[in-house]
Structures are given as structure tokens and as C-alpha cells.
């Protein structure tokens, strides 16, 4: 495999970008679509005071919840922690700050961050605790909440396939937040199940153009799901 853009690296090299206090996006839904190997590497590195942005606190064994449970986060921005106990316990102990965002709003805040917008206007959450402390903006006589865009220092992405430039293809429902987070970080690190030569991915099939991708690693991703 050629490496003309110097994007293909080892997991250890990729971890240089993950530092104490950084804001990190980890894609995946209940661990599906999350990079197991990169999450394990973050745990191994032991970085602290992370602000973690993820759609949920994941599956306790394979998702980003692993990092939360390892007490490496000071803040979690998410839509759901119900699947696991670690985040809730730390929150109740006052050791973790949690910002809940409705799932569609969270996705759209990340999308906005990735396409150079400062925020979005939505009526989801109006009349609920979600509107507390948020600016309301009236458009054509109707009120909306201003939800600010989210960006990160690092995004952790799982792709089915990457080429040398970082063009990405995902797999089925493992897509989730991956393409959105891939655009929203200063450094986008991709764990690709397969790395192929330029031209092997049909341009029509590319979901994330390679310009968004900074680092490509090849993880082994070997784990067992609860139902297996």
C-alpha cells in the first residue's frame, strides 16, 4: 500500500493527537459503528479531563462508555446514557458533567459544526427543560431554539473501507454519526476495516470525501456482541 499523503499511520501514532483536556467525538450507536481499537488505545493512553461527544454512552464493553467508566471524561455531551450505569453513577457523584441534547438536535449540531455553520434553529425541545438558558429566535412569527454547533479537536471514526486519500465507505446501520463527526473535528482519525488503493472505491459510493480525513489506521476490531 502506498502512503503518498502520509495519512496511514499506526494506532500509537494516531494517539499523539489525543491529549489531556481535549474535546473528542466518538461515533457509533450503542457501540455499533464505534472503533473498538481506538477506544481501547485511548483507555491505554489514560488521557484525562476529556470532553466526550457521542450519541449515547454506548455499550459498556465496546463503546465510548468504556472511556467514561474509566473516569477519563470531565464532560459528556450526548442524548442517552440509559444503556449503562457508569455515566449515571459518575454524574450522581458530581464527577461528570452531562449535557443532554435530543438525538436529532445533537446530530444536526455536529453536522453544522462540520459544514462551517455556527448553529441551527429548531423547535424540538421547546416547552421542555432543553430550552433552559437557550436563546430563542423568531423566524416568520414562530419561535425556535438556537442550538450551537459542535466541533472537536479529534473525531474517532469507524469505516468499512478507506482508500489511501481517506475517501470513506460505511456499513449499513454502522454509519450513524460517522460521516457527520468526520467533518467536525480538527483531526479526523479513521479506523478502516479495509484500506484500498486509490480508484478502488467508486466515486459514486464515497460518503466522506478524503479531504476530511487526517489519519487512517487499520484496526482489528475483534470483539463479541452481547447477543452473540
Amino acid at each position, binding site marked *: 500500500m502506498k502512503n503518498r499523503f502520509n495519512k496511514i499511520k499506526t494506532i500509537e501514532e494516531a494517539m499523539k493527537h489525543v491529549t489531556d483536556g481535549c474535546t473528542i467525538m466518538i461515533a457509533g*450507536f450503542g457501540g455499533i459503528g464505534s472503533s473498538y481499537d481506538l477506544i481501547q488505545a485511548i483507555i491505554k493512553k489514560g488521557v484525562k479531563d476529556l470532553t466526550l461527544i457521542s450519541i449515547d454512552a454506548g455499550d459498556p464493553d465496546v463503546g465510548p462508555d468504556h472511556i467514561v467508566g474509566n473516569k477519563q471524561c470531565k464532560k459528556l455531551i450526548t442524548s442517552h446514557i440509559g444503556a449503562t450505569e457508569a455515566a449515571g453513577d459518575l*454524574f450522581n457523584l458530581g464527577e461528570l458533567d452531562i449535557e443532554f441534547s435530543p*438525538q*436529532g438536535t445533537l*446530530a444536526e449540531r455536529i453536522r453544522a459544526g462540520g459544514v462551517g455553520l455556527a448553529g441551527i434553529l429548531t423547535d424540538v425541545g421547546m416547552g*421542555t427543560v432543553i430550552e433552559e438558558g437557550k436563546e430563542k429566535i423568531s423566524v416568520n412569527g414562530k419561535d425556535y431554539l438556537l442550538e450551537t454547533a459542535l466541533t472537536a479537536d479529534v473525531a474517532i471514526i469507524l469505516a468499512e473501507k478507506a482508500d489511501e486519500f481517506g475517501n470513506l465507505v460505511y456499513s449499513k*446501520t454502522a454509519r450513524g454519526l460517522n460521516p457527520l463527526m468526520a467533518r467536525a473535528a480538527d483531526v479526523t482519525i479513521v479506523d478502516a476495516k479495509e484500506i484500498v488503493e486509490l480508484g478502488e472505491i467508486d466515486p459514486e459510493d464515497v460518503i466522506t470525501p478524503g479531504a476530511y480525513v487526517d489519519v487512517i489506521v487499520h484496526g482489528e476490531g475483534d470483539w463479541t456482541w452481547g*447477543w452473540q
Partner: protein
Amino acid sequence: MGLAVKEMMAKRAAEEIENGNVVNLGFGIPQKVVNYIPPEKKVFFHAENGILGAGPAPEKGKEDPDIVDSGCVPITAIKGASYFDSADSFGLVRSGKLDITILGALEIAENGDLANWMVPGGLIPGMGGAMDLAKKAKKVIAITTHTDKKGNPKLKKRCELPLTATECVSLIITDLGVLEVTENGFLLKELFYGHTTDEVITKTGAPVEISNNLRLIDYKEA
């Protein structure tokens, strides 16, 4: 014996779904609705993690770890299904392409306010996609027991728990019957076999109007 109560509620909810509808099912009893869609109806089930056209569970041993529903349970994709990212998934909901969402409830107010995501002081699981779905689906159907485990009404004048969305529920299917949320409050339209209007009135925490064409639902033959 007729169907178990939860099955009857799911079967009744399935009657609301029409051919070609795009439908999202919440956790619990709503997930049983899929079992009561007649084969002549082609329904596209949406799972917010990124599929339209969610199909039944695969045979054991044939699960694909990359095809799951929003509960991370392995499913299949039906013919005509599509995959998309989370923004597209909720874009579809917000822009009015989701015909029906069927959700569980902790409390429902007579104006259609819904509370189903948290109990203060208790576990805070997070709202997941519930706020988006309840606020933006074209039709929100709540399936819930009429009272909580202590016997307190779940249908009331105002919700006391933190809201999921305001004025969103239009139809409520309980273990006693079916109520519509109208401009004047709860309207009892149907009763499950074995229950009475008096029972519904007693167990509801707000006034209940009784429909002139009250239907008695008897699934005993089912």
C-alpha cells in the same frame, strides 16, 4: 381466552397504520405492533440509528452486527430499505416524512403534552430520539397502561414530570380502551372488552368525554 392485554394494545395500534406508511416504534409494547401488520400492508419501519425498511429479526446465527435497530438488537433490512446517517434520519422526522410514531408514556396531559423521558431524582437515561420523534412525527400514538403501578392516573390535566414534547399526542391506547386527544380534552372512543366507561372515568386524572359511537373492541376471536 383472548389475547393478553399488551398484545391487544399492540394489535389495536397496528390498525392505525396504513399501506406505505413510514413508522417509528418506541421500546416496549410499541415494538409488538410489528407482529400485527397484515401481510397485504407494506410498511416502512424507521429506526433512528439509520434505516428505513427495518425488517424482522434474523435467524439465530445469521445476525449481521452492522444491521441493528435503535435498541441495538439485530434486525434485517426489507426489500426497498435504505441506510443513512443520523442527521438524515432525524431530518426525515423533522421534515414531516414520518407518518406515525408509537411511543410509551409516563404521563399524558389532556392537551396532548407527553412526559416519557425522565423521573426527577431517579435514573436520568436521557431522551435519546424521543423529543424529536414526539415533536415532529405527523401522528403520535401513545401506548401505556391507564394507571401507574400504584394505581395513579397516567392521563391527567397537566403533566407533572419533565415534558418530552408539548401538545403532541393525538391518540392514546391503554389497557382499558382508546382515547383521542381533542381540543376539549380526552375523548373515549373505544373500550376493550370487559371494561366500562365508569372505570375509565375513575382511573383518568382529567375529565373524559364519551364518544356517541363507542366501539367495544373484542379480540377474543383473534
